[in-house]
C-alpha cells in the first residue's frame, strides 16, 4: 500500500517518540493477547488426551464429564480431571492453560465465598491477584474486563467518528442554512443529560434481551449522545479547506460532493481527528467503568473493572487487593493510551508538516 509521503514522515516521527511508541506496542500486544485470552486464562484445558483420543476443549461446545469417564453430565472440571489422571498414572493427560480459573467460577476460600488474598500474599494457589467478594479470580476478571472495555471503546470511537466526521464535514462543506440548522440541533441534542438517558433507557429495555444485545444498546446510547463534539472540529477544518484552491479545482473538474469531502478534504483535516482518538478511548473506558460503578453499565456477571472498583471501595479495609488491582490496572491502561495520545499529537502536529502558510 502506497502511503502519502507526508503520512510516512508522520509515522516515522511517531516511532521516534520512544515513550509513545513503546506504549503503543505494549497496548497493541495486550489487545492481540486478549483475543487469545481463552488460551491463557481458562478453567477449560488446552488439550486432553483420553483413551488415546485428543480433545481440545478451549473453543467450541462444552464437554460433559461423561466424555472423560466422570459421573456427571455438566461441564468437566479439568483441574480435578488432571489430578485424577495423574493419580491413576495411566496414559491419559490434561494440559491446562497457565491461569486455571475463568472469570465466572466461585471458588471458596477457607471454605466460604469471600475474598482471598493474592497468592504472593499467602493466598490460595492459582489466584495471582486474589479473588473478589464471591471468590472469582480477580486476574481473570480484570483481563476479560479489559478486553470488553477496550473493544467497547474502539467500537465507540469508530462509531462516534464516522457520525461526527460525516456530519461535521457536511456542515462545513454545505455551510449556510444547513450549517445553521444542524448546529442548533446539535446544541439542543448535546444538552440532553447523557447519564440520565442511559439510566432511563436501561430501565425500559426489555430484560429478555441477551447480554451482547444489552452491551450493544449501551454502546448505541453512548454513541448517540457523544458524537456531537467531533462535529465542531470537523466543521471548522472543512470550512478552511473548502476555501483552498485544490477544492475549487476538484469542483471545477466535476467531482461529486462525496468524493470531494472524503477523498480531498478529509485527508487534509484528519490530523485534527487523529490526535483526539486516544483521548476518546480514555474517556470511553472511563465512562463505561463509571457506569459499571454506578450499576448501569455492562450487565452482571460480565467481568468489568468498574464493578471491581465498586466492590473494592466496599471492602477497602478487609480486602484491599481488590481495589488496588483494579485501580492499578485501570491506571496502567489509561496511562498507556495517554502516552500514545501525546505521541500521536506530536507526530501529527500540523505546524510541523503543513505546507501552507
Amino acid at each position: 500500500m502506497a502511503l502519502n509521503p507526508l503520512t510516512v514522515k508522520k509515522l516515522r516521527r511517531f516511532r521516534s517518540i520512544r515513550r509513545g511508541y513503546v506504549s503503543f506496542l505494549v497496548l497493541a500486544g495486550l489487545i492481540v493477547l486478549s483475543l487469545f485470552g481463552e488460551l491463557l486464562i481458562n478453567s477449560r484445558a488446552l488439550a486432553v488426551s483420553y483413551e488415546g483420543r485428543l480433545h481440545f476443549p478451549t473453543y467450541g461446545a462444552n464437554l460433559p464429564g461423561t466424555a472423560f469417564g466422570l459421573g456427571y453430565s455438566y461441564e468437566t472440571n479439568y483441574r480435578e480431571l488432571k489430578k485424577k489422571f495423574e493419580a491413576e498414572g495411566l496414559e491419559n493427560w490434561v494440559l491446562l492453560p497457565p491461569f486455571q480459573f475463568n472469570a465466572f467460577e466461585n471458588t471458596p476460600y477457607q471454605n466460604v465465598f469471600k475474598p482471598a488474598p493474592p497468592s504472593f500474599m499467602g493466598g490460595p494457589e492459582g489466584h495471582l491477584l486474589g479473588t473478589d467478594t464471591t471468590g472469582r479470580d480477580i486476574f481473570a476478571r480484570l483481563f476479560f474486563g479489559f478486553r470488553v472495555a477496550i473493544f467497547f471503546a474502539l467500537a465507540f470511537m469508530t462509531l462516534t467518528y464516522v457520525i461526527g466526521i460525516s456530519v461535521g464535514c457536511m456542515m462545513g462543506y454545505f455551510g449556510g442554512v444547513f450549517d445553521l440548522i444542524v448546529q442548533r440541533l446539535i446544541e439542543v441534542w448535546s444538552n440532553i443529560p447523557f447519564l440520565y438517558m442511559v439510566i432511563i433507557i436501561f430501565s425500559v429495555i426489555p430484560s429478555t434481551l441477551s447480554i451482547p444485545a444489552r452491551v450493544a444498546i449501551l454502546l448505541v446510547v453512548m454513541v448517540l449522545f457523544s458524537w456531537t463534539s467531533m462535529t465542531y472540529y470537523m466543521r471548522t477544518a472543512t470550512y478552511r479547506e473548502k476555501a483552498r484552491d485544490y477544492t475549487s479545482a476538484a469542483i471545477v473538474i466535476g467531482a461529486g460532493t462525496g468524493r470531494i469531502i472524503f477523498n480531498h478534504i478529509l485527508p487534509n483535516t484528519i490530523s485534527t481527528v487523529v490526535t483526539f482518538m486516544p483521548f476518546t478511548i480514555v474517556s470511553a473506558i472511563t465512562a463505561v467503568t463509571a457506569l459499571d460503578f454506578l450499576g448501569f453499565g455492562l450487565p452482571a456477571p460480565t467481568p468489568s473493572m468498574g464493578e471491581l472498583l465498586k466492590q473494592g471501595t466496599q471492602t477497602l479495609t478487609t480486602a484491599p487487593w481488590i481495589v488496588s488491582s483494579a485501580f492499578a490496572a485501570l491506571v496502567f491502561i489509561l496511562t498507556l493510551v495517554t502516552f500514545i495520545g501525546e505521541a500521536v499529537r506530536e507526530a501529527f502536529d500540523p505546524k510541523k508538516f503543513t505546507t501552507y502558510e
Partner: protein
Amino acid sequence: MHQVLPSLSWSGRWLLALAGVFFLVGCGKKKEAVVERDNTAEVKAYYAANPDFFRFATPADLPKDLEWENGADLPEIGSPAAKKGGTFYTFLQDYPRTLRHVGPDANGSFRPWLLDDVVVQWAWRHPTKTDVGPKGFHFFSGLASEWAIDKARKTVWVRIERNARWSDGVPITADDMLFAFYFWRSKYIQDPWYNNFYTTNFAGITRYDSHTFSITLPEDRPDMSERVLKLYPQPAHFFKELGDDFLERYQWRAVPTPGAYTILPEDIDKGRSITLTRVKDWWAKDKKNWRYRFNPDKIRFSVIRDTPKSFEAFKKGEIDFFNLSLAEYWYDKLPDSDPLVQAGLVQKNKFYQDFPRPTFGLWMNTSRPLLDNREVRVGIQYATNWQLVIDKFARGDWQRMQTGSDGYGEFTHPTLRSRPFSIEQALESFAKAGFTTRGPDGVLVNAKGERLSFQLTTGYEALKDVLTILREEALKAGVEFRIEVLDGTTAFKKLREKQHDISYTAFSVSPEMYPRYWEDSHSVNAYDNAFLPDGTVNPERKLKTQTNNVTSTALHALDQKIVAYDRSSGAEEMKKLAFEMEEMLYEHAAFSPGQVVPFMRTGSWRWIGYPEDFHVKLGKNFTEWMLFWVDEEKKKETLDARRTGATFPPVIRTYDQYKTKD
C-alpha cells in the same frame, strides 16, 4: 465523549434552576392555599350517611355478660435497669419523603419511627409469650385499660385509659377511633389500600361513651381479637383540615401521637437529619410494659447513603449501633479480634428470634412460556443450590426455608421439606418436559430448539452474590439464569406487573396467627376470570397486575380451599386446610423456598444498654421494641477510655433461648 462531563454539569445546573423555579412556585402556591377549615360537620354527615357502620349507643347498652381482661398478669417487657435520658445516634439511607402515615410515599423505610414501632395500639400481642391461648394471642394493655371479646357476637369491646393523651395534650377518646375509620376510608388520603382494608374487614363501630366503644367484624376468625386490638385511633382535632389538599397540607407536619416520641418542627433538617424527641410527661411513662421502654430522650438520624460509610461512622463512634447481620460485617469487617471489640468498647451480640420470616426464595411466574410447565418448575427447584449459598456465602449461619409459611407455629406444616439440590432429579424433571439434550454451552434444549434459559431478577443489590452462586450451580443442571439486578423500587414494580420470569425476592410477613394464602395464591389475584363456571381454565383469561400473586398461581381446587380457610372459624379446621394447601403448593412448585435468617447480629457501643436477655422473641430488629437505653455516664467513661487506651472486658455474646430447631 469529551462532551459527557461538561454536558452533565450543564444539565445539572439546568435541573437545579428548574427545581428552583418549581420550589418558588410551590412556596407561592402553598401560602395562598392555607385556609382555615373545619370538617366536623362533614364527618358527622358521613357518620349519619352510614348508620349501619357508625352506631351510637349509651353506657346502659353495654352487654352485662362481658368478660373484661387487661393482660396484667403477663410478664413485663424491658429491664428495670433501663436508664432514661441521653441521645441515641443512628442513620438513615434515605431522607423520609413525608411525615404523613398514609398516602403516596408514606410507606417508606422511616415509617417504623413515625408509626409502627412507636405508636400505642389498643393492646399489643405479647412479644415473648407467643403461644395461642383459648382466646387467641396474649395481649397486654396499650391505649385500652381493658377489653372484652365475644366470639358469638363477633365483637370486641374496648375501654380507653382515662389519662391517655395525644402528644399535644388533647385527651384520646372513642371519637378518635370513629374518626379513624372516616379517615382511613376517605378519598382525600389517596391510599387505596387503606380505603379497601377498612371498608371490607370491619362491620361496624359502636360508641358507648367518650371512653368506651366496640368494633364488630364480618366473621369470627380465630384471630378476631388481634384484628381489633391492633388498631389505633387518629387525632380528629389534628385532621380537622382534611381535604383535597391533604398531601401538601400534611406533608411535613408531625402527626400527634399516643406514643413516646414526636418530631419537633425545628428538628427537621431536610435531606440531612431528623430527630425524635420524647414527649414530656408521657401518659404511659409509669404503665406496666411501657415504663422500661422508649428510654432515650432523643433519637437522632443523620442521612448516610452509603453502607460502608455508615459503618465507618459507627466505628468512629458517631453512630451508636450497627446491624452486623451480613456475614461480611460480622466476620470480616468487625471480627471478634477487632481492637474495638477486644478493648470492650464495641459489643457484639447475636440474638435468635422466632417469628414468621420474610419469604426469601425464587418466585417463578407460571404465566411465562416454559415456566407454565410444572416439570420445568420442579427441575428448577432441584437445580437451585440453596445449601451452597447457606454454607459458602452465609458461612452456615442461615437456615433453609421449608415452606412459604414457616414460623407460624402450629399452622406451619410439620413434615413438608423443600426440595434439595440434585442434578440427577433436576435433569430427570427437565427430561419429562422434553429437555433432553445439552446445547454447546451446556444449557438444555428441547426438540423445538428452545433453550432452558430464564431471566432472574432481584432488587437486592446486597444479595446479588447469591444469584451469581445460584447461576453457576444451575448451569450444571442445564438451566441458565440470566441475572438482572435492579434497584429495589424498579424490581418491585416489575414483579407487581408480572413482567418477571423468576424473581429473587421476599415478602415481609407480620407475626400473625396463621399464614395468608389469598394474596399470593388465589386465582383472583392472578387472572381476570381465571376459570369458567365448570372449573376449567378460561382460554381468554387476562393476567392481572398489581397483586401479590407473583407466581400467577391459579388452581381451581386451591381456590376452593382458600375460600373455605378464609371463612373458617375453627383453628383445627384451618390447620387441616393450611396443610392441604401447603402440599398443593409444593406440588405446584412455583416457589422455591430460599433462606431464613434466624437471628439478628448487632454491634453497639458500650454505652448502649439492653436487657439481660437482650430482646424479645418477636423482635425483628434491635430498635423495634425500643428496649435499649443510652447510659450517659458509661458514654463519658468509654470515650475517655478510647482516648487513654484503657480497656474493658470484651463482650461477644450469643442469646439462643428462642433458637428453633432445623
